[in-house]
């Protein structure tokens, strides 16, 4: 078992909503990676969390 599988296992062990949120967070982080202090990023995470946990 390599570390990549372990990381994947960690993701797989999450609830489906949390797994989806993790994916969205990574997408958002990638989108804003070149901005040092992205003001809107936490709000967008909250929006994603609200959408997933209605």
């Amino acid at each position: 078992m390599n570390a990549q599988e372990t990381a994947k296992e960690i993701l797989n062990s999450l609830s489906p909503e949390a797994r989806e949120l993790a994916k969205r967070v990574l997408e958002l982080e990638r989108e804003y990676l070149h901005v040092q202090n992205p003001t809107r990023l936490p709000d967008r995470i909250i929006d994603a969390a609200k959408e997933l946990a209605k």
Partner: protein
Amino acid sequence: MKLLKLTIDNFRVFHGRHVLKLDVTEDKPTILIFGMNGAGKTTLLNAFIWALYGKFTDDVEHQERIINDRVWQEASFGTTVQAGVRLEFEHEGAVFSVRREVRAIKETEAQKLPAPQLVVNETRQGESNTITNGQDRIEKILPEGLRRFFFFNGERMERMFTRDGSGEVQNAIKTLMGLEMIERAIDDHLPAATRKLTTAAKKLGGGRLQALAQVQEDLERKIAAARDRQRKLAADISSYQAEVEATNKALLDNREAAPLQMRRAKLAKDREQERLRLLELQERQRRALAERGFIAFTAGLDQTVIDLAEGMRRRQELPAGIQRDYINGLLDDGYCMCGTAVPPGSPAHAALTERLSNAGLADVQARWMNLRGNAARLVDARNALLEELRSISSDLQAAGAKIDDIDAEESDIARQLKGVDVVDVPKLEDRRAEFDAKRVEALGAHRDAEREIERLQEDLTRSRRQFRAAKVEDDEARRLQRQMGLVEEVLDAFHRILQVRTAEVRQELDAKVKNVFSRICIKPFTPELSSRFELKLHANVAGPAAIRSTGENQILGLSFVGAVSEMAKEIHVRKRKTDGGGLDEGGIYPVVMDAPFGNLDIEYQDQVAESVPRLTSQIVTLLSQSQARGQVLRHLQASASRMYVLRSVTSKEDAKEQTITINNRAVPYVTRGDFEHTILEEVTA
């Protein structure tokens, strides 16, 4: 990142515009650029670095002269002069154009240039946009911390690992391997989202959730304050540590230097003594010569006197010793000593009177005898003077030689002490002790803060659990509970993922460095990438640190570059092929290297030439004719998509024009022209 084109305008040695096409095919990833010394290979390497980061490598002289000298000289005062570099590359499906230029109105003979301007354009799916924070974007594509591994001079490769910075390298690798985004989520954005949700919970009005939200907010504040304190303490610890290390070094230097310094002090004292002795001897010599030097000129004269006196005495030419007074007495008495009357006018009186005049010769005889005695003493005095002068001269010579010896030894000590900041050792000891005590104290405070944070985190986790488990009637409150629960679940998972991914990256990179290194190096050395991403080289597996030559440092550097490139590429391919849960990042990165064979001998050159095309998918190699011969050139040419020559144009009338053989063809390498400059020319097949 795939390089497409580099356009240079009036940049340093390059007069006018020069274009370097950088596209390569998959099977031929190399671009070879040949140039003689001073033709601009280093400038070309720096054109990439300057375009991307606005900086030059340390070995570039007169970095303020960005605009080509000829262009600047020819410009009239008051006119605008400019230089620039544009780098076009492809990354993650978009084409980027990075143009850095400097534009100035000529007001002085020397170049006084304003800050260069950067314009970054991104074209994606036919739509082009100017990026406001272009430097940030470049930094995320290829972090500056890694530039020395991707744009480098082979001759200076050993410096890759000697500069400050394993932290910088670690961060840069994290960016490259996609770990930075997880870190940012953990450190900043997920906690910020949690805080906002907590604030929203407080607004729900009365009840259990509000109270718990308030508790959480307080705990968060305390944690933030403790972290701030911890950060300051960490900075203090680093600075105290640096101070202790600097003092340790100074102490070590001084301890090593102490015997030398003592010896130097002793030598200074000895030299002063010898100098005084030399002065005293010179004075004695001067005095002896001044007072008795004339004796030296009497050699022979004294012996003549002695011989003369002795001869006269032997021949009885000197009269007997009758005193004048005695004869005068006889004449006054009127009787000779035999009783004969000697009245004046008598023959006897006349005879005595004649005797009286002869009696003067007795003085002469006495004086002759005296002179003989003196002449004998003169010989002794001259011999004594000679002996004394000989002795003084010998002492003078010895004292002079001793001073010369002292000077020579002192010179040797000065050489050994060069670079040692000579200071007072006890003061240094005090300083070291003071900063070490501060460091230990700060470490203790840091640990206390760590424990405090752990305790607060436990309280926070408990409070959050209570928040999630709290029975609430209100739908909105229940939703909020679920949202916070989700965010925290992700945060916890990211913490664990970061840990395993960091270990994975280090482990994979370590294995790759070992692999590339063993392919090239003939010695049984083993490289190791530490947990802090510091690259070390062991004499054998788990053995002591290897004593590395410059060449081995270069191989180590190349191995690291190859490993990072290869791994970034693998992660990138994995991302495209499989769903890694959005965790994979990586990418394909080019390598631009000047003098790739720097200090390597022929055998290693051959190995490196064979390994270079395998380093990554695009390799721009700048080299001189002497660095590419025989087998090495064949290896490189076989993998080259494009080849260029930096043709040196010289105004020197008697300069010999030269060619370089590429693809069995003589290509102009040095030609004559109106002024000194370089022309970049592609060599076609």
